[in-house]
């Protein structure tokens, strides 16, 4: 059984795909979600092997969402689209599998056949955005999309990954690794990333240092990362 998740903002489209997938006993639809943030949560929680992702979704597109997933735990991805010519061209150029809405039964069979043969996720880097513009977050039940430029620093603790702006601290499903690779945030500690443009002061201490952000928050800097951080600002 291949576990899969359907991600699409249109309820009827989800239902329709769900109905179609139900014909294929080798697949089990374990969840549906209507936007990227929900999807990130469910992917972390349910760890599906395959996801069907609609490209046109509110705030964070399907492509952007996949770029946010940690490559280490990345499921196999099948994009679904109605008319995004640009994306379709990219898929064809790199021979990625995609489905056109309304989904043709035969085409779906071919896709499932291919997935069964090779469940290993393929490198999607070629078609995915290199840099993220948004960070999907949530704060209790409230979903929120933060512009990546507003982030001062991010850190991980036992309860997960947190993103801090000058106004608030919210929770995200992005891993520090993804944030480090796909945003301008730089590593300053095993558990901390900081935005260089948010740094107001670097206070050197016995055991490393501390960064003071523009909004007055303190971010620890471990000795290991102090040097590269200083170099970033031209100190040697």
């Amino acid at each position, binding site marked *: 059984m291949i576990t899969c998740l359907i991600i699409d*903002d*249109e*309820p*009827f*489209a989800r*239902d*329709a795909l769900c*109905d179609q997938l139900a014909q294929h006993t080798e697949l089990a639809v374990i969840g549906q979600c*209507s*936007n990227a*943030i929900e999807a990130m949560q469910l992917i972390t929680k349910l760890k599906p092997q395959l996801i069907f992702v609609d490209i*046109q979704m*509110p*705030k964070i597109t399907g492509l952007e969402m996949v770029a946010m997933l940690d490559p280490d735990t990345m499921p196999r991805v099948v994009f679904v689209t*109605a*008319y995004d010519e640009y994306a379709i061209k990219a898929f064809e150029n790199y021979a990625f599998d995609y489905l056109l*809405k*309304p989904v043709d039964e035969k085409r779906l069979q071919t896709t499932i056949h291919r997935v069964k043969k090779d469940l290993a996720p393929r490198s999607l880097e070629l078609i995915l955005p290199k840099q993220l513009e948004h960070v999907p977050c949530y704060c209790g039940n409230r*979903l929120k999309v933060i512009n990546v430029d507003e982030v001062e620093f991010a850190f991980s603790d036992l309860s997960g990954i947190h993103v801090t702006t000058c106004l608030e601290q919210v929770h995200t499903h992005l891993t520090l690794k993804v944030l480090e690779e796909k945003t301008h945030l730089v590593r300053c500690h095993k558990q901390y990333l900081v935005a260089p443009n948010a740094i107001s002061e670097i206070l050197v201490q016995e055991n490393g240092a501390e960064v003071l952000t523009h909004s007055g928050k303190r971010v620890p800097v471990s000795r290991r990362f102090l040097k590269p951080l200083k170099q970033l600002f031209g100190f040697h």
Partner: protein
Amino acid sequence: MQLILLLTQQMCLYLVIVYLLSKTPLFKLFAETATRLPHKVYIYFIFSGFCVMATYFGEQTNDAIANTRAMGAVLGGLLGGPVTGFLVGLTGGLHRYSMGGFTDIACAISTTLEGLSAGMVGLYLRKIDKSELVYTPMLVFLVTFSAEMMQMGVILAVAKPYSDSLDLVKQIALPMLLVNSVGAALFMSMVRDQKTMFDKLSSAFSTKALKIAERSVGILSRGFDQESSTKVAQIIIEETQVGAVAITDREKLLAFIGIGDDHHIPGTPISSQITQDAIDQNCVMFADGVETRYACSISSHCRLGSSLVIPLRCESEVIGTIKLYEPKNKLFLNINRTLGEGIARLMSNQILFGRYEQQQNLLTQAELKLLQAQVNPHFLFNALNTVAAIIGRDPIMARQLIQHLAQFLRINLKRTTGLVTLADELEHIDAYLMIEKARFFDKLNVDIKIPPALNQYKLPAFTLQPLIENAVKHGTSHLFETGEISVSGAIEEDLLILEVTDNAGLYPDNQDDDNSGLGMSIVHKRIQNLFGNEYGVDIACERDRFTKIIIKLPLITASQPDTLS
């Protein structure tokens, strides 16, 4: 008595010279009070000349000279102002002084004073804003009369011996007082007549030109054809009273009104060489019937005897001609020649404007077509996907959706680019929203709050629908939460105000992809093109809270004739 006659003779000589001057363009300068330096210099020379001449032609009387010098000094002062008057008087006075005699100093002083005081009167009149009074003969008479009285006084006071001067004054006072005053008054009355005639002529000319312009405005911009040309020709003949007026394009006669319209039939090809020449050479052709012969090329019995042909230009290309005719027994007035050229320019501009406007309209129509074409594929795909998605689970709803889709497409195809009623536009929107609501299910709420009383008002087709589509496509579809769109309408003063508000507040995000901003700008441009710049589309946006599109339209009810479509 004899002295009066002699002086009168002298005065007549002046008036003859003045009359001759009045036939030259120089005379025009008298007709306005001098304010600029070159003008004052001119006045100075002319009237100083008069003073000198007057002294020469003067009558030797008791070792003095009875003369009409005062006329020159006073007129110079009145027309030229105090400084000019003073200088005229001084020149005349110095010249008189050089002639000698026992009154030489007295005359020199008095003439200078006359010029200066007349100048002061002129200045005073200008100060109290009554400079027109300078041209009243009565005033000139009085000023000259007083000036001469003063001169007599100066002679009595200055010239020695007193007994001689008293004798002299007794003899010359009456003749000089009378002749100088009457002469100056007559001079001014000639100036005034000339001035009135000139003013009348130019005002008649401008009135005619303005009337033609006013009556013909907009006619040709609707198109340069037989119908519009006939209207314009009718206006020109009524206003100019020429024998006949014709308008042609490059090949044929479009309109002919007036003498000879029995054989100059609109629609027939151009037959006269002079018209052909005007078109080929792109210049005004004039056959006055005397130096350049003119004969009608169609009928030998035609009474038309002279013709003016002016090319009509649109950008530099000749697109036709306008022709003015006079019959053989009437002279072709110069004023009509100038007027004709002005009319041709006016018509050319109007035709050019018409073409420009037409192109502009074509452009908006083309853009509108583009808008329709652009919107449909995406919308259609989404609609079909929705239908495909629900057809298995809810066939009845699927059928209803297909009906809505058909309805939407039917309205879309049927629509012209003219005006439709708000009720029609709402029907279109309704069909559209039925499909979008099905697509987004519980994530889209639309509240249409337009009072039924507004349904009869008209607006350009595709005004509201593209804006609502924008609100969905670029607004609420980007929300996680439920999209709320409200459409409201109201009459404010003499405006029909329609508002489309969404709760996304994302304008102007996403406007650059697939030219979707075009929708809004076309709607705006069309409204402004149709109704004027005071109408159109305004946008108010508060980031992440709302976007409000406000449409301002004139109040046009369904009963009004739809002149715009």
